[in-house]
């Protein structure tokens, strides 16, 4: 092989340029990395993640895990991350529910219903989310003051400091109830399999949903009373300033959850509507010809086909919701960013804290995407 082929032969020349370009790119990246690290060090900006082990020395009002002011910054971050995940999961569930219902109702033949939904969608979609969060929070603050709490039988209290509910007290034998719940779930799965096999074979349908519900709820309830009520409830009592005992759902969580789920729900409803409209009308007509009622047609014929169109943009909405939850900082819901900002301010480790935000949100988004892609692949049209 002659060396001159490197620039006379088209393929070899192409290869040479590719390699050169790659080397050039690698060099550029290396220069950026080396320079940045060097400059950060020179400016005293990079001092690593050691601060995560230092004492946080501040309190957090909503803790899903054990935490107090003597815990470390790292643990505070975990508490914040869990709070973010909590509101994101609750928000995704509610937004999906709102979105699917609103999307279907928007296509309703009832003019009033479809118009009401249209107004909801257009309004929530077009008002900045931050304003909606503050709006819901102000609504929460106009609830009765703590002294004038609305109470339901002195067990559940509602005031502008949240909803206070009794907390369960587990006594001997309560584990059997959890076993009963598990047994109910397993039983339902078995029944569902059997019903499916029977329907495939004979065409006869079986009300799995109702039977399942009865088993999952009924069995634990029966065990509960048989064992002489081993799970007690500790009701909140009125204290000097606040109600004491029980669990509290803060108004910040409620406001954030409502705002995120109604806002994202509006977007999801449009996606659902588009998905349903993408299913050919012939499918509905064919189902009608076969004797399917409209509800069944929607559930068994239209939605499964619409889902293939719905899922990919739905994933983006889930990701948006998760990221939007960082607006919590405005109303004092202690999510990852709210707690992180406090840590940043105390420790001064700006770059490290921001990088943690990025890593956490990136991981949450990738996990959500991975799950939704898996689900999408599962429901994809199997062509035979």
């Amino acid at each position, binding site marked *: 092989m002659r060396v001159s082929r490197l620039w006379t032969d088209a393929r070899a020349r192409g290869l040479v*340029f590719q390699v050169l370009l790659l080397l050039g790119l690698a060099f550029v990246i290396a220069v950026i990395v080396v*320079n940045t690290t060097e400059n950060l060090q020179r*400016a*005293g900006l990079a001092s690593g993640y050691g601060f995560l082990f230092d004492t946080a020395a501040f*309190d957090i009002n909503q803790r899903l895990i054990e935490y107090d002011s003597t815990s470390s910054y790292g643990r505070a971050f975990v508490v914040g991350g869990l709070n973010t995940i909590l509101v994101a999961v609750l928000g995704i569930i509610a937004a999906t529910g709102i979105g699917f219902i609103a999307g279907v109702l928007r296509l309703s033949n009832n003019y009033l219903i479809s118009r009401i939904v249209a107004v909801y969608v257009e309004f929530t979609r077009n008002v900045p989310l931050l304003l909606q969060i503050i709006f819901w929070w102000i609504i929460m603050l106009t609830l009765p003051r703590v002294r004038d709490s609305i109470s339901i039988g002195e067990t559940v209290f509602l005031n502008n400091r949240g909803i206070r509910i009794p907390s369960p007290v587990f006594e001997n034998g309560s584990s059997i109830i959890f076993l009963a719940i598990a047994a109910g779930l397993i039983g339902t799965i078995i029944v569902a399999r059997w019903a499916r096999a029977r329907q495939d074979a004979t065409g006869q349908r079986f009300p799995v949903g109702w039977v399942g519900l009865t088993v999952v709820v009924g069995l634990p309830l029966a065990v509960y009373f048989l064992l002489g009520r081993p799970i007690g409830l500790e009701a909140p009592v009125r204290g000097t*300033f*606040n109600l004491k005992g029980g669990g*509290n759902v803060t108004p910040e969580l409620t406001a954030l959850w409502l705002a995120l789920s109604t806002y994202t729900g509006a977007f999801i409803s449009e996606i659902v509507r588009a998905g349903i409209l993408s299913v050919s009308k012939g499918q509905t007509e064919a189902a009608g010809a076969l004797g399917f009622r409209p509800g069944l047609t929607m559930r068994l014929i239209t939605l499964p086909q619409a889902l293939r169109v719905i899922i990919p943009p739905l994933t983006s909405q889930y990701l948006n919701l998760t990221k939007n939850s960082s607006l919590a900082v405005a109303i004092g819901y202690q999510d990852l960013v709210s707690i992180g900002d406090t840590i940043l*301010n105390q420790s001064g480790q*700006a770059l490290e804290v921001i990088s943690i935000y990025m890593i956490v949100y990136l991981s949450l988004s990738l996990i959500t995407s991975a799950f939704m892609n898996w689900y999408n692949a599962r429901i994809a049209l199997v062509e035979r």
Partner: protein
Amino acid sequence: MRLKILAHAAVVTGMLVMVGTAPSQSATLDDVRAAGELKCGINTGLAGFAHTDDQGNWTGFDVAYCRALAAAVLGDSSKIKFVHLTGKTRFPALQSGEIDVLSRNTTWTLSRDVDLGFTFIGVNYYDGQGFIGRKSLGVMSAKELSGASICIQTGTTTELNLADFARTNNIDYEPVPIETNAEARAAYEAERCDVYTTDASGLAATKATFEDADQHMVYPEIVSKEPLGPLVRQGDDQWADIARWVLNALIIAEELGVTQANVEEMAAGKTDNPEVNRMLGTEGSYGEMLGLDARWAVQAIAAEGNYAEIFDRYIGPDTKLGLGRGLNALYKDGGILYAPPFR
């Protein structure tokens, strides 16, 4: 085509190498003189401390210090580039050299001084964290707050002081941390929380704006020390000295009765007071020691007046904030403001 791409890559690489070069650690004083302006980091807006006047100029207690420093170094109190910083961006801005001095009600703490690589050059306002609550609670002291919900304005050391105070006094509370003063106040007024805590200077101002101000009381406990002051990057002692002595000059000017109105007159010739003469450059060579003009202190005082004048103009009793001198009075007036002598 490909050659063109390569050429582009080479140019881009070259630029990045240049951009990547760090700001040199040369003397800040030379940089400021070369630039012809002082880059001063201030608040994004805080009544009394840094805010715009009706002509759109930035003024305030913290801003006045920047003006005095610019006047001392450059001879012109308007040669300033203000950089507005939040609680989050202030430290990186100073570390990276984006600003020459940070004058943004920042609490002097050990970790900021040592770990973050700053030099605090003094204290221009002694503050402390306090509590405000409704009289109807029937509580006379912050130590009786066990079980209460407490609204906190975040972004300073407030949360930590509260946690420390609660731990010391065995108080169990629900923290409600809110980022901005406006929303924290709204939450307090709606009785989302029983009490509201922030720096005492802020509490006085907040209470004054309540419609039913007489229904609220500020508890006697001040749970923290909040010495607020300007700071510079560590490692340039000359610049830190200049910044420190400009602040000291303003305080000593009050002590010696040198004001914005009479400073030029007093600097015109030797007065009977040798310390005034030393400060205003008519005796000794103190400006030269600092690397400044002999009239540096005259210019600094002429900018916005001495400490008392600045205090009264922006945050004093006759302003909306209506703050008394308290701890911030001179040592001879019962406060703790005490600047080392010009000697």
